[in-house]
């Protein structure tokens, strides 16, 4: 029997997420910087939007959950 263990070399999530599923995002970002018409300033602005939204989403959620944790403290 031939056995294939995908995680012998790399954990599955490592290649599923960062190699396969990341491709559309990497393509879009490469297109911004390398495609034409090319404008580095605007490409950087778009990248700032992308990163800014990631940070604001998770930081916002962090403060929201901290607030909920204070209002509804965990049972000890």
């Amino acid at each position, binding site marked *: 029997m031939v056995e294939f263990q995908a995680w012998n070399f790399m954990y599955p999530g490592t290649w599923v*997420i960062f190699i396969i599923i990341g491709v*559309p995002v990497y393509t879009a970002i490469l297109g911004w910087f390398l495609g034409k018409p090319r404008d580095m300033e*605007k490409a950087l602005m778009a990248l700032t939007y992308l990163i800014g939204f990631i940070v604001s989403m998770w930081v916002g*959620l962090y403060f929201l959950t901290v607030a909920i944790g204070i209002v*509804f403290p965990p*049972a000890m």
Partner: protein
Amino acid sequence: MSSRTPNTDDIVRPMQSTAKWYYVVFGAASILALVWFGLWSIQLSRGLAVTNLADWGSAGGVTWGLYIGAFIWWVGIAHGGIILSAAVRLFGMKRYLPVARLAELLTIGALSMAGFYIVIHVGRPDRIVTSVVQAYPVTVHQSPLVWDVTVITMYMVMTLTYLGLTIRYDLARLRDDLPNILEPVYKVATIGYSEAEDEVIERIVWWLALGVIVMAPLLLHGGVIPWLFALLPSMPGWQGAIQGPQFLTIALTSAIAGVIILALALRRAYDWHHILTDDVIRGLTLWLGLFSLLFLWLQLQQVITGVYAAPLDQRSFAAAKVTNPYYQFAIGVVLLSLAYIFAQAVKAHLFSPMRSLAASLLVLAGTLTEKILFVFEGLEYPTFDMYYNTPGHYFPSPIEIGSLVGTIALCTLFFLVIVKVVPVIELHAIEELRGEGHSHVEGDD
């Protein structure tokens, strides 16, 4: 179709005047949302014991139920938006330009509700930070749950970026007609704007559309979300490569239904019959028919392969599924909608916006029911049945059912607020309808 010519006054009207219906709907949605927050606070105080989840002995012992089913349903609705908008840009489907931004906003509203369901389902919301975020560097390498969080975050962020970039064009040109009180918001949103950027931004958005149109259908709703289930080896109802296409067809069906409902509601509210024309609604109705057909076809595949001569565990699950009255309801209402769509495709006079609205509502009811059933029946009929001697069936508790009303109310409130903040119909759409088209979409229908 109306002979009125669309103009910019049409799209800024929601921000300049407020009708009586607005206050009524806002009030009703706020009350329903508050009722839900009240119910949720009971869950936050007493824990998931107030749900019927994990209640073995009387409720089948399932740990996932309505919350996860509704999560998948909302993610599905979220698909319509950005995919429709991306298709307008990539494939030149100009006919749907008037609904493009509405659809993008639907993605944001619906995806927020999906994310909210995860927060609700984990019981204590702080677990999102204390468990998911802190353990991320380790868990992302192995856990499909964390893949899901990653891809949904990317999808949300790509949609927000898409909207943030495309809206600059509109805000810069319509600023004098927009509410003064929001001037700081518009200033931030259009920071550094100049007309010279339009061509570059259109190309940046084109690349983003390309990424979204691959990621959302194939890797999110046809990928990491079905993998939450299909990768588990002991649940015959969840397993199999068919789950990817099946999830995708349900998502696209729900999504188009959501866009039709939203478009018809706003068309009536703001007298946009000359912008969101019958032609657009009929086109969307036909797409709804195509996706409904694919949804039913994949259901048929699963039923036939499950009931004919499948291994015993699969046969047991399939028998439970087809004999469940809720499943019959779900398939029945989608079939009924499909019958109308087919009839109006053959005889155009049978088309009416109200019938398309009814078909869309039925489809959404059907897809929600199917998704909830998929989640908990998959758990109720495992290969090795731990709860065989304590039979019972899951049915959502009032608090779980209340979450559906609450999230629909919250999504309604999102739209009631957003129509007061930004133009929900692209200025490009008005220019196109007036024959002042530009080159931001390539090709024709």
